[in-house]
């Protein structure tokens, strides 16, 4: 999808330096505005999560565990990073998140540039993140999503550059912080396989075209030095961090950072299509079986998209996360950022027109609005709108699937002149 902004002032505005500085400035201004709003108005600007992080950091400075703070379900690393919130200024965390946000955009720009895109065009796609109200609001309100975004985009950036060690460290860190990047393991592994050598391939084809032989060859291509290096370093980073924090905080760390998210069955209303089903069956013996049934579509889709699109890691990861979030048992608007951050990297490869793209965007927002209305009436007016929320959740899943189908059918695999044969 190409943006046709040809007027002079917009192209001057979209020059890299001006764009990035403006984006940074907007976020800083909002952080300070948030201080004002928190002091004067009843509805606070700062997200409740920010207070959870700060309280957890305070517990660490007092020498105890961050998990003493109820609803702190993150890695202790986050609370440790935010210790300056207690000693320096309460705004430290927000400033850190804002900086991570802008760095993510810079990494997106670098990836697009590395793929051969011109400065101006790359800036236009990055503007979709830099000037997008959603990430601006999220990081200035104090949500830590931008830390994860910067880690994921950095992983993709280092994979493009084939700096495998740095990519592996970033990847290990990102999985430690939130579990969902673990789904990227398969596409990353597939993208690191030894490229087929045409001569040996032709010989092989003559010898045998049995499925078992092809599978055997596939696995032998997979086990190469690059993949082993990546696996060892990413795995090492993840396990080292887990070991350190386990020795510091024990079982609580595992429970809140990982187990809670893996077994989370939030029966309170959320965007997920499964919400009402899980609420009604929360105490029945079918609960486990249904949970598993809900897991299978996610698994199947993730497997098949890995094999189909591993050559373009950004697109594959985008599909992975969009599928994961849409088919998940719990879905909140915070999760949308996890795949929206990859959109600037995906859009250049799509042949959708501006009109089609905006149409899909409108559809996506309409789906959310249709859910938010009955949800508001349930939570704040006490009306029994459970059926409506359920139907809206199903409809939202359908819309998400429709949007994904359109994106998949308009994806054009780019020819990558930079990729050279290895192995």
């Amino acid at each position, binding site marked *: 999808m190409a943006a046709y902004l040809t007027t002079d002032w917009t192209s001057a505005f979209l020059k890299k330096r001006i764009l990035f500085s403006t984006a940074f400035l907007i976020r800083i201004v909002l952080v300070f505005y948030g201080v004002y709003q928190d002091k004067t108005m009843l509805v606070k600007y700062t997200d409740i999560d920010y207070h959870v992080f700060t309280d957890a950091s305070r517990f660490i400075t007092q020498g105890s565990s961050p998990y003493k703070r109820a609803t702190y379900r993150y890695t202790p690393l986050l609370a440790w990073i935010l210790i300056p919130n207690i000693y320096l200024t309460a705004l430290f965390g927000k400033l850190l998140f804002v900086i991570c946000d802008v760095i993510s955009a810079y990494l997106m720009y670098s990836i697009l540039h590395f793929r051969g895109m011109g400065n101006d065009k790359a800036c236009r796609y990055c503007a979709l993140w830099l000037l997008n109200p959603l990430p601006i609001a999220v990081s200035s309100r104090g949500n830590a999503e931008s830390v994860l975004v910067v880690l994921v985009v950095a992983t993709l950036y280092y994979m493009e550059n084939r700096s495998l060690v740095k990519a592996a460290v970033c990847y290990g860190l990102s999985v430690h912080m939130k579990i969902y990047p673990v789904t990227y393991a398969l596409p990353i592994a597939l993208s690191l396989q030894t490229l087929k050598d045409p001569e040996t391939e032709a010989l092989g084809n003559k010898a045998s075209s049995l499925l078992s032989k092809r599978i055997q060859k596939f696995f032998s291509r997979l086990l190469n030095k690059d993949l082993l290096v990546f696996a060892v370093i990413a795995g090492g980073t993840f396990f080292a961090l887990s070991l350190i924090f386990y020795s510091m905080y024990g079982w609580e760390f595992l429970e809140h950072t990982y187990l809670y998210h893996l077994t989370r069955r939030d029966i309170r209303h959320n965007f997920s299509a499964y919400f009402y089903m899980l609420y009604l069956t929360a105490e029945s013996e*079918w609960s486990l079986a249904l949970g598993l049934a809900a897991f299978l579509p996610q698994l*199947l889709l993730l497997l098949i998209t890995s094999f189909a699109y591993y050559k373009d890691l950004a697109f594959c990861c985008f599909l992975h996360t969009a599928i994961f979030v849409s088919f998940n048992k719990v879905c909140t608007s915070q999760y949308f950022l996890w795949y929206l951050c990859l959109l600037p990297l995906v859009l250049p490869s799509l042949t959708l027109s501006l009109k089609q793209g905006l149409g899909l965007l409108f559809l996506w927002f309409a789906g959310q609005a249709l859910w938010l209305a009955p949800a508001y009436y349930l939570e704040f007016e006490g009306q029994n709108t459970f059926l409506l929320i359920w139907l809206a959740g199903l409809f939202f899943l*359908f819309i*998400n*699937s429709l949007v994904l189908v359109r994106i998949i059918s308009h994806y054009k695999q780019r020819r990558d002149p930079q990729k050279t044969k290895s192995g």
Partner: protein
Amino acid sequence: MAMALFCLILLFKSTPSDFTTDVHKHTHKGDKGYCSENDWLESFTVIRRLINNGFHRELVSHVQCAAAVPEGSQVLLLEKLPQGVYVDPYQLTSAQEHSDTQVLLASEIDLEAPAYLSSGFSALVYASLDPQCSWCFTTTLPVHARYHRPAGSGEAEQRVSIESPRLLVRAEESTLPLACPQNKVTEAPCTAQNHSLCVWLEIHYQQELEAVSLQIPVGDQRQVLAVCTGTLSVTLLCCCMILGAVWKHGHFQL
């Protein structure tokens, strides 16, 4: 009066889970005249209201005394809240900066559990004299409703009743007839900061209306089959849609 206090004997403690301790005392015949003079203690009325709708409410308790209340009096409401609601301690901490209501919670509260996995709890709500009306105390306690078990017989809502609180009063010791036989004396924290214990007098009051309650929407258990079938069908449909698109357009190279 000090002598009377010395005669107070702790015979047994009430349940430690709500911070209070009932106290037994000796009666003194000489105090009978004094004991009948405290009309203001008989003229308390408590009006309770739940404002807002939905899952997030505010429990407003208006404690009115028909007679003059001694200077520096403090009122404490001992709330026993049912398992169907909860109070957010973090919300209370930030609200305490702006409001006169101070709250002390007796136990840890799980903010996310549904009602059937939770238990009732006690809250001590401290109030000071409200300057806007004569001899009254107003407290506001934000309460949130928990998710309840889906109804098996098609009721759209579940009623959660909040029982009337115990009313305790504290003032200058000389003005309180702590030793009188009809009065029940209790020990409880002096303030929400829980640094020290004070002696409070329990008041029997008139309640204007019956106990407040809130109606919470619940799911309909009878729909479970339709909901499961519908959900799994739609997810299967969407899964096939995306599978089909990937199979058709994907670049498979095994």
